[in-house]
Structures are given as C-alpha cells and as structure tokens.
C-alpha cells in the first residue's frame, strides 16, 4: 500500500510541476492583460523551481547540512539529497524576482502612457 502510494506520488510531483509550468505558459501566451502575463511568468518560474528540487531529491535522504545530527545520520549510512539543484534553484529564484520586478516596472510605464492594461489597445504589443 505504502509502496504503491509512493509510486503514484513520484509521477504526481513531476506531473504537477510540469502542469504548473504549462498553466503559467498558457497564461503568458493567451491572456490579454499585461499583469496576467507577468503573473503567468511567475507561475512558470515556480513550476521550474519545484521540478529542480524534485530532481535532486533522494528517497529517505536528509537535508545536506552537516550539523551534529546530520553527521551522525551520515555515519549511519543515510544519504543526503543532492545539494546542487538546491543551490541552482536559490540562484534561479533570486534572478526570477529581479526579472519580475523589471516586468512590473514596464507594466507601470505602459499604464502611464496608455491607461490600459489590455494588450489589444496597445498597438505594438500584438503578436
């Protein structure tokens, strides 16, 4: 029972992460409101981050921290999860925030000029 649940969960984490990426991408490509597009982008980034951490996960692993407890567990042969994807996600989150901030400032700039967030009323933004 436990084992089977585990198996489904494997697929569940990956598929929900990919689903979240796709939902975000859909929002960014289809929605007509500038803010909705930015929201879509940030949802997309969230999905990618989950995917990263999930790839680095190790069943029954511990966090990659060698505190006193961690060393003890490591000596007992308990493995640690992969720290590299975590470090990369840390970088990716911060970069994502920077990009989101720039995107929102552009939204404010566009609002200043056009007084609308609706994409079809801003002539050059159609694609």
């Amino acid at each position, binding site marked *: 029972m436990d084992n089977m649940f585990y198996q489904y969960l494997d697929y569940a984490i*990956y598929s929900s992460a990919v689903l979240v990426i796709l939902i975000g991408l859909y929002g960014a490509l289809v929605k007509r409101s500038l803010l909705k597009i930015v929201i879509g982008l940030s949802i997309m980034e969230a999905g990618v981050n989950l995917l990263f951490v999930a790839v680095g996960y190790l069943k029954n692993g511990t966090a990659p*921290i060698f505190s006193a407890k961690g060393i003890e567990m490591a000596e007992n042969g308990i493995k640690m999860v*992969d*720290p590299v994807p975590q470090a990369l996600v840390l970088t990716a989150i911060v970069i994502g925030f*920077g990009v989101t901030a*720039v995107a929102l*400032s552009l939204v404010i700039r566009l609002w200043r000029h056009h007084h609308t967030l609706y994409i079809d009323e801003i002539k050059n933004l159609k694609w």
Partner: protein
Amino acid sequence: MKKILVILLLAVVGFYIAGTFFDIGFGNSHFVKNDAIKPVKDTYLQQTVQELKVSNTVTSIVVNFRGFDTLGEVTVLFLSVTALGSILYKKRHHVGERSVLFSASSIVTSGSKLLFPAIVLLGTYVFIHGHLSPGGGFQGGVIIATGFLLMLLAYENYSVSHTSLAIVESLAGVTFAGVGLLGYMNGGTFLQNFLPAGTLNDLFSGGVIPIIYIAVGFKVAAELTGVIYTVLNEKGENHG
C-alpha cells in the same frame, strides 16, 4: 482559435517534458546507472566537511564551489534596481508622494515599530549563521528587506535614503568582488578561500565564506529595499 492552437502546442511540449522527467525517475540516485559517471555532488558533500569546514553544503556550493554564479546573481539584482530606476525615471520627482496600500491604524504602526528591530535581528542572525544552518545571505537579506517593507507600509512618511542604500549596496558589492580578487592574489584563483578554515560547526569557520555571505546579505537587503521603495514611490499620475 488561438487558444486551441496554444493548448495543443502546450500539450505536445508538456507531453515530452513530463515524459522525460518520468523516465528520469523521482527520488532515486540517477547516476548509479553508469559507473563512469562520477557526479560532482559527491565531491561537494565530501569537500565541504573536509576542506572548507562548512556544515551547510548548499552554502558552500553557493558561495565557494559555484561562487561565480552568486557574483553574477548579485549583479542581476543590482542591475534590476538600476533598470527599475531607469524605466520609471521621471523628470520631476515628487518627493513624499507614495501610494498608500491601506491607512495604518495605531495598532499597526506601534506593532511595526516593535517588530522592526526583531525582524532585522532575525535577518542578521540568518545571514551570520548561513554556513551553519539553513539560510544565508539571500534569506537574511530578504528578511531584512521585509522589515523595511513593514515600516514603509505602516508609516506614510517613513523614507529610506537613496544615498545610504546606494552606499551600502556599493560597499557590499565591492567587498564581494574585492574578496574575490584578494583570493586571486593569495591563492592564484578568483574567489579562492585564502583564510584558514577553522573547525566544523564553529561560528568562525569556513574561511572567507561567512564574509562573502554577510556582504551578500547586506547587498540583497539594500537592493530589495531599493526595489520596493522605487515601486512604492511610483504613484499613478492621473488618479488618486
């Protein structure tokens, strides 16, 4: 019509990406399939204890093994503050005009006054102990920035000096790059750990790693406060 097309496209993309990740598998060691692959993470986990004496492996990767990434990342934040200022630049700058999210009651204002030092203290704790426990420069810096955010929201006239933010930011950035260059002079490579590593799980351990992470903490705090402050001061023109 366009929606259907996009959904179809997304379905195809999703199918392939999800399929790939299903094949990779969850929670198993992917690298054991082949003996010829020696994943770098083993070296990281080994060397962080043996060589660097840093107990948090993520910290040692972020600051030392892949410290160059972090330098770039701090630069990205720095650039996004600059970009924000350049994109939202206006000729006449109205000082003191700020969008008010909610009118703060006296409970909120006095509560923020009490909370603010505690938040800053927590942030400082988090980035000083970055090499020992979860957290570090980014997390601590963000926590401090939320403290400033609280003050900005609670007090309408509370302002952060742009000049002091810029000075903190610049000094922290120069510290990071300067420590990197010192490493180059002392050890032959950029960002080299040239200080003695100390003992594991000690506050003063890990050589330059805590120094860099504290610099990162100050820099991130200043940058994020700058971002919030810039956006908050951007009051819409024609409406209240």
